[in-house]
């Protein structure tokens, strides 16, 4: 059991990280990373949804007919996303307005469906929950990394706190959509180059 948990952690956080290794869930990874506070909330929302929907799918795996399981999974995911959306609206209206439709788009985030299908479908609920949790954290980790770069260079701040001071010339490009593509591409480049070295 312990070795299983360790294996899942290592796999989800690094060797099969959903964003940089499997190129999943890119939409929101690019869209919400201009400010760190938005990114953190989004990451937590995705982690919550992945963990609980994977657990639910796993708990119901003997009951759901195979032919319609995609539809059922989508509905399970959508229910959890509605919970996230309502909680955000009630307690963090500002963040909720910033994230806009991207909260709802957690439903079509391929990471969640991927974990339900690849892991939840064939493993007990406890492990499925843990796997979902770790995948979500792997996603959050990469997003936070992107948003640190973008917010620091674009605004000179981290979590809205000024870090770089007056002398720093703000890179407007880092606030604009184009930079999200460049930063993510660079991260993928570095990681894949490292990986090909390791495998040789």
């Amino acid at each position, binding site marked *: 059991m312990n070795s299983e948990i360790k294996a899942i952690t290592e796999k989800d956080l690094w060797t099969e990280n959903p964003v940089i290794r499997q190129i999943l869930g890119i939409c929101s990874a690019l869209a919400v990373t201009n400010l760190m506070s938005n990114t953190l909330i989004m990451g937590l929302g995705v982690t919550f949804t992945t963990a609980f929907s994977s657990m639910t799918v796993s708990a119901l795996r003997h009951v759901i007919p195979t032919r319609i399981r995609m539809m059922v999974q989508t509905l399970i995911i959508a229910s959890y996303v509605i919970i996230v959306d309502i909680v955000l609206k009630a307690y963090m209206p500002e963040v909720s307005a910033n994230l*806009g439709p991207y909260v709802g788009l957690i439903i*079509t985030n391929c990471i969640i469906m991927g974990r339900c299908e690849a892991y939840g479908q064939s493993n007990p609920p406890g492990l499925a929950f843990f796997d979902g949790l770790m995948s979500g954290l792997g996603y959050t980790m990469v997003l936070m990394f992107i948003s640190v770069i973008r917010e620091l260079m674009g605004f000179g701040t981290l979590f809205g706190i000024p870090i770089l001071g007056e002398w720093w010339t703000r890179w407007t490009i880092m606030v604009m959509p184009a930079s999200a593509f460049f930063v993510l591409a660079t991260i993928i480049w570095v990681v894949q180059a490292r990986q090909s070295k390791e495998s040789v």
Partner: protein
Amino acid sequence: MDINPIVIFFASIFTSNIVLTNFLGMCSYLSISKDLKSSWGLGQAVIFVMATTTILNFLVYKYILVPTGLEYLRYIVFIIIVAAFVQLIEMILERFMTNLYYALGIFLPLITVNCAILGVALFMVIREYTFLQSLAYGVGGGIGWALAIVALAGIREKVDETKVPKGLQGPGFALIVTGIMAMAFIGLSGIANIQ
């Protein structure tokens, strides 16, 4: 929100392109853009499905969800409408238009999970569009998505022979090309703004 539908139509193709400024539908955008022919096939399917489902979602939201006070169920309702509609189209095409079915058929299931379709419906609700505005946004958004994927596929076909650093091959390279395209599209942003 009183914007001329024609402005919305052009803005959603060029200045507020859903791939290049809103990052929607990236998964299939990155994976299907390896050759021109299939990216155009997918693009056409997206235009059609996006235009029709946006209208359907608009009608259901305005005349069923809002009067009954069930707005918070919109995520579930929208995704069911999209999935059911795509399924229906697939069956109709298979039965009556076999040629078109073989051309578009394989792309249709992909569209259900394309977040651009759901994203356009959600933007429509947030921006409080009217019927004509939603129609313009749905059609324009679809054309904009198709334009972006066809352009990327064209570029990727041309540079296929070029030497690219090993770690950058595939998705990394596509992302950088998209970034440059996004920068080019910023140049058009003075024309109209709907954000």
